């Protein structure tokens, strides 16, 4: 057994609730102010309305925080839930956890959908949702042991700050004989010293005999965990079978699981090959379609873009089963064995890198002008070990590189770092500084929104330029797609509840490549239904990839191919089989609409959630600089002439940039108008009284909130 100094400060025994139709109907509340451990029943009406997963998380948080709560206040909660379908072995993507908290980057709820075994293990240990509030005096480890029916809190003073090692140590400590029984949630040094800390969720890879990781990356949830002085949360559980969720209809569950898994097994190898290359197929496709972020989202492709995609990683990924859930047929959580970093604390040592995925390759590669897979792997590895979000890290470093190249900041500000695009050594050094909270890295770790204010106020930089090129919305850094030519995706980012993360509405192909939504109304409809489908996966504890990243061969014959209705029908069957609650496709959407609007109201409660917060920087809409305009001059010139009826004869580039900007900004406003109308919101982006009543979330405090915001 690994020798760790863990001092038990609180322990309770409990009687584990039996799982009934996917639910334990219990919640676990841990208050670190007093080491309180409280188990509560989940009321039937909460279950009916909020379903599970993100719905449960948000409901718990709503009742814990006030409109004045800041991310680092004790009452801020970190909630983790799976969902009624989570923990179904063999169902593709059937083991996700959804995490929420008030984000240090956005000051509103952030949600993150993550693999690994924690969510299902916690549920099978007896708890649909875990809520952590308060702040510990000393660093603690929380253990939820579903086998022994015990919950313990340990104080610790000497555990490593490195999430990579810590997860291994704790897995070994809590079940050396059967490490597959353990899942660890932890973060690292970077979460302590930046606002973009992530959580690593583990599972034990029995083939390779090692601990593996997936990340709840966005919005700084790891920073909140570190602020609460929680070193790690550990769930322990043993056998998982179809029976563990105690489904309402076992035969129906077996049938739909087999059907969906067979489809993935048959078609993935003919389509995106995610079981071989994860999401790295997207790198060359995005590069070819001018959507791969290059040099802080200035450009959408690069001659070397192919170098950091599936061409390389097909060979580099270590062969073996890479499902982040038991028996998942998508099995896309690949990694690279025996990688040797050239910098930092692991310099010269062989490590296993979990990743990269597309977002990391784009954000920490092309967006930094880096087309060397080794550097991407090294940034990926250290972000995980430090507990930092690769998307926010990549987008933030891209921003400061452009600021440096444009002279908005200088070597004096960067403490000597030459932050040119493509400078791999400087990028790595900056990452280590961010993790340690030192030098210029201490500023970059605060995220782009705060950097813009610091650069303008303290460094005298051009505030307007900073605003135009700083790729954040609501305080969250953009994920890694160029949206200039896709108005719908601009809305997919700017009108997303938590900030610009593609998981809510990914519409680039449907809008820009396939041109299936030519009108504002078409785009607004897509920006209604796509988030509803995505929300549903977060309610139930599922991954979205098996929905529409592997497409049925007869999908093209369906009335609405974009919705991949055949798979949605299977999800309805899946839900009915586990929960016994008969639903159809419309029923799934209705579940999501409740929680989606509730989250928007939560934003409003926190002082946001209105139109003024749904904006995006102009770089997301169009060319900020003459060079960007020139990179797509034919397209932009044609658009000015044909779409906006502008006579461009004799016009210089700067004038064209200005006119195009006015028109594109107008388009975005019209899109927001159409989306708000479709979603049943006011012109200011607030759910109407009629909408909240229709959805049954017209609670007294919700109605008071609406009234306080002039909605009656």
């Amino acid at each position, binding site marked *: 057994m690994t020798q760790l100094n863990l001092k038990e400060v609180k322990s309770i025994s409990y009687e584990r609730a039996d799982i009934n139709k996917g639910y334990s109907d219990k919640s676990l509340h841990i208050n670190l102010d007093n080491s309180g451990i409280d188990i509560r029943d989940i009321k039937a009406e909460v279950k009916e309305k909020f379903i599970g997963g993100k719905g449960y998380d948000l409901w718990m948080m709503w009742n814990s925080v006030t409109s004045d709560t800041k991310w680092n206040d004790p009452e801020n909660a970190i909630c983790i839930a799976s969902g009624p379908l989570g923990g179904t072995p063999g169902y593709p993507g059937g083991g996700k956890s959804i995490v929420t908290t008030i984000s240090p980057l956005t000051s509103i709820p952030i949600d993150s959908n993550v693999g690994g075994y924690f969510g299902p293990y916690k549920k099978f240990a007896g708890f649909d949702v875990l809520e952590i509030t308060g702040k510990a005096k000393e660093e603690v480890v929380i253990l939820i042991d579903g086998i022994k029916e015990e919950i313990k809190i340990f104080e610790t003073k000497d555990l490593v700050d490195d999430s990579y090692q810590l997860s291994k140590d704790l897995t070994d400590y809590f079940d050396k004989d059967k490490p597959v029984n353990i899942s660890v949630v932890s973060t690292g040094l970077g979460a302590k010293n930046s606002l973009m800390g992530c959580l690593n969720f583990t599972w034990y890879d029995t083939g390779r005999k090692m601990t593996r990781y997936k990340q709840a990356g966005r919005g700084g949830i790891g920073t909140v965990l570190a602020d609460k002085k929680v070193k790690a949360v550990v769930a322990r559980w043993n056998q998982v079978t179809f029976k563990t969720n105690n489904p309402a209809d076992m035969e129906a569950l077996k049938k739909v699981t087999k059907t969906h898994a067979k489809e993935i097994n048959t078609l993935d190898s003919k389509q995106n090959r995610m079981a071989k290359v994860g*999401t790295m197929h997207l790198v060359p496709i995005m590069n070819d379609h001018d959507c791969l972020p290059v040099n802080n989202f200035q450009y959408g492709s690069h001659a070397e873009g192919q170098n950091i995609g599936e061409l390389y990683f097909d060979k580099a990924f270590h062969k073996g089963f890479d499902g982040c859930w038991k028996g998942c047929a998508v099995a896309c959580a690949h990694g690279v064995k025996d990688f040797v970093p050239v910098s930092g604390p692991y310099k010269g040592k062989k490590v296993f890198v979990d990743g990269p995925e597309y977002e990391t390759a784009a954000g920490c590669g092309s967006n930094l002008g880096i087309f060397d897979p080794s550097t991407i792997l090294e940034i990926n590895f250290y972000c995980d070990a430090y507990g930092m979000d690769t998307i926010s890290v990549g987008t933030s470093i891209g921003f400061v590189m452009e600021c440096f190249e444009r002279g908005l900041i200088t070597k004096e500000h960067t403490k000597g770092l030459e932050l040119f695009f493509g400078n791999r050594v400087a990028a790595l050094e900056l990452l280590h500084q961010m993790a340690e909270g030192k030098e210029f890295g201490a500023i970059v770790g605060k995220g782009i929104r705060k950097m813009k204010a610091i650069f303008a106020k303290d460094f005298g930089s051009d505030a307007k330029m900073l605003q135009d090129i700083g790729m954040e919305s609501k305080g969250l850094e953009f994920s890694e797609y160029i949206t200039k030519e896709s108005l719908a995706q601009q809305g997919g980012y700017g009108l997303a509840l938590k900030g610009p993360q593609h998981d809510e509405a990914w519409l*680039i192909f449907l809008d820009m490549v396939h041109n*299936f939504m030519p009108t504002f109304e078409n785009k607004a409809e897509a920006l209604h239904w796509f988030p509803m489908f995505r929300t549903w996966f977060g309610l139930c504890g599922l991954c979205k990839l098996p929905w529409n*990243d592997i497409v049925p061969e007869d999908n093209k014959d369906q009335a609405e191919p*974009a919705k991949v209705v055949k798979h949605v029908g299977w999800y309805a069957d899946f839900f009915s089989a586990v929960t016994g609650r008969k639903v159809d496709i419309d029923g799934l959407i209705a579940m999501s609409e409740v929680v989606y609007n509730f989250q928007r109201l939560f934003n409003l409660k926190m002082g946001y959630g209105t139109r003024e917060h749904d904006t995006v920087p102009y770089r997301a809409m169009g060319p900020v600089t003459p060079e960007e305009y020139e990179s797509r001059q034919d397209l932009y010139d044609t658009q000015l002439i044909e779409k906006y009826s502008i006579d461009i004869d004799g016009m210089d580039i700067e004038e064209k940039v200005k006119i195009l900007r006015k028109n594109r900004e107008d388009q975005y406003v019209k899109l927001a108008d159409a989306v708000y109308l479709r979603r049943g919101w006011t012109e200011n982006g607030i759910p109407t009284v009629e909408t909240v009543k229709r959805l049954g979330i017209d609670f007294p405090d919700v109605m008071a909130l609406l009234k306080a915001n002039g909605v009656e």
Partner: protein
Amino acid sequence: MINVNDKDMDWYEDMTISNLMEVIEDTDYCAAVRINDVLFSSPNFDKTIIPDNAKVYLLPLIAGG
């Protein structure tokens, strides 16, 4: 002869991906194809020549990431 989505099809010299698309129905969602395991995206369909005996899969891309 080439094999497209597991069905044999006639092949001719200098046949491009765009040529192939013209004779296949319902290619609306196809933004990329794999030819012998190598990926080609739609901006390159006109200039990419399919070799004889190629194994071709059309990728119905709707979403990603």
